[in-house]
């Protein structure tokens, strides 16, 4: 894929992007465009099915994911997902979910095209670096568990953050640790979920960062909502939001 041609990519907004973070979807599209891609918002898609799949309701999950699968199978080129956990669901677990069904071949086809947002941006980090992005301050990067452990992505988001002048990424926790979102876990066990968020936010507070950055709307929604309630910890924002704040348009 030569960097000079504007290759078409399809943006899968995800359900949390649609409901809770519509800004992130727009910022994702602009970031991709700035890197020389030609992004198009996927039409007719719903959710990746992860909430049902992770709760053990495979049949329900299949029904939901089927709608997104069919819509995405009508597109071509990379499918960009601005959510590590959804990317992991679509890239790795759709094959499992549709195994033995008549959608299996489509699932294999589509899953191979799924790309997590920051990996695509990192491939064009040189180009990002020429855009004069600046964000003075220190941040912590929160690894989404599925993005880190299932997809093995940890360098790409950091490479993207490295293109922003004035920005320092500081390490916080002993090991990358789950923030306590866990999809339905966050409402099934709210008290434990919030305690886990506090552990992550306490680390960020100790590190005196200006913001916590992540590439997963699930973690962000949960952490930021907890941080908002506490009032003594930094806000939590999506990496595409940070790029927008750094001057990307």
């Amino acid at each position, binding site marked *: 894929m030569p960097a000079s041609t504007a290759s078409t990519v399809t943006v899968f907004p995800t359900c949390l992007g649609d409901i809770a973070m519509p800004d992130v979807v727009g910022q994702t599209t602009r970031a991709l465009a700035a890197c020389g891609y030609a992004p198009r918002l996927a039409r*007719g898609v719903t*959710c990746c099915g992860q909430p049902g799949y992770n709760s*053990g309701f495979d049949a329900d999950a299949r029904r939901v994911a089927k709608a997104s699968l069919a819509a995405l199978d009508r597109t071509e080129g990379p499918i960009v997902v601005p959510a590590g956990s959804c990317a992991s669901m679509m890239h790795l677990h759709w094959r499992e979910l549709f195994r033995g069904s008549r959608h299996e071949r489509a699932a294999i086809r589509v899953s191979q095209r799924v790309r997590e947002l920051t990996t695509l941006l990192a491939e064009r980090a040189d180009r990002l670096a020429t855009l004069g992005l600046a964000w003075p301050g220190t941040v912590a990067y929160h690894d989404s568990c599925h993005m880190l452990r299932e997809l093995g992505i940890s360098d790409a988001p950091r490479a993207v953050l490295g293109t922003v002048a004035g920005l320092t990424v500081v390490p916080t926790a002993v090991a990358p640790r789950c923030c306590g979102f866990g999809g339905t876990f966050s409402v099934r066990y709210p*008290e434990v979920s919030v305690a886990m968020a506090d552990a992550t936010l306490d680390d960020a507070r100790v590190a005196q960062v200006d913001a916590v950055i992540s590439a997963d709307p699930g973690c962000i929604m949960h952490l930021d909502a907890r941080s908002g309630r506490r009032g003594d910890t930094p806000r939590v924002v999506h990496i595409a939001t940070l790029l927008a704040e750094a001057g990307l348009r």
Partner: protein
Amino acid sequence: MNRPGPDPLTSSTFSQRAHEQLGKPFLRRAVPKATDHAYNALRDRFRDHDYDALREQGRRIRADAVEHLDEHLATLVAALERNGVSVHRAADDARAREIIRGIVRDAGGRRVVKVKSMASEEIGLNPALEADGVEVVETDLGEYVVQLDHDRPSHIIAPIIHKTRGEVRDSLSRVAGRELPDDAAALTGFARDTLREAFLTADVGISGANFGIAETGTICLVTNEGNGRMCTSLPRVHISLMGIERVLPRLEDLAVMLPLLTGAGTGQLITTYVSLLSGPRRPGEPDGPREMHVVLLDNGRSALRGGAYQDVLHCIRCGACQNVCPVYRQVGGHAYGWVYGGPIGAVLTPLFRGMDAGGELPHASTLCGACDDVCPVKIPIHDLLHGLRSDRVRGDAAPRAERVASSLWSLAWSNPWTYRASVTFARVGTRAAARVPSGLVRRVPGAARWLDGRDLPGGPRPGGRR
């Protein structure tokens, strides 16, 4: 050790137990500190070595052991018997208790010293022996305190991770009949002297088995305190209770399994003591028990073979998955309601105790996968947790409210138009909710579960910067 009261697993929910644990300030400080310490020790231990390659070797050894379990067990039994060991097979916990009670009775045992054993916790051995009028003394310092307090261990290898020094001091002071100093060395010294007396006078020593080596007929025990060695050296009878899956085909397999067990558990190169016990005292030897018994415990293990959860039998009970689990870190082991806590407990408990009792536990995880990354034998714990969630749904054991919610979700989101409508509704609803009294918002089903401790997503941030 009598533990009065109902079974926590069936009489309470994970939420309730977690709530209780989250209210303990010391636990909230101590468990993260201790588990981080253990994880850092593991990382340091393997900093200059290829942990992944070693655990792959460990996985292969354990997979071979479990895949050909019948054959290896037959070899083990024959070798143990050649070594003069009496071997007993127990299909379930009741039978295991009965066998051990019988051995103690036949030996005229009045006093039993015990080495920490999760299998003996699993079968509830101590109350059964005590009902026969036998005095049972746990000799691992942590287990001793657990026993004095009629408590349960809360971590596989650090049983009193949840207790303060002050609590330990109170427990030991009751035994001493005087106020002991608030000092770990002095408390340990008192426990040593008290337990030394028990070692010297006990008739029977009971241990678990970290491994049973098939080729040589050897039980392997690891400890740091030396109590494993004491319990198997001084009393005239030694009984080892071993889960059938803990077999290793060859003696040399320990060259892989020991560094994995101790490295993953405590970060040590090797534990202070590793005992290899191949039978009772032989002619010409200066000491050792006159009788050695091995009780092979099934208790639901062989039923797991050939099924989707066979890999859980590879577990060597190192506790590493507890140390990295972000949920365990907050709530400790007691929240899981039975003897095995943390990620591996959330798999073992529904398998051993059934879906009705333990089916909730696989949900007590965010499926973050930290346990998979650290497990020394590469058990895909988070796949097993996910599988158990699916099984619960397929077996109709999921609560009705969950099934209804999932059906509604699936109905609405399997179609782009109804999805759009619900998304718009949710967006507008969230925005409107920010402007109406929170008491009203909390009446929306499920909303209170989010709003206890968290704001609405995307709401204004009065305390936030920028």
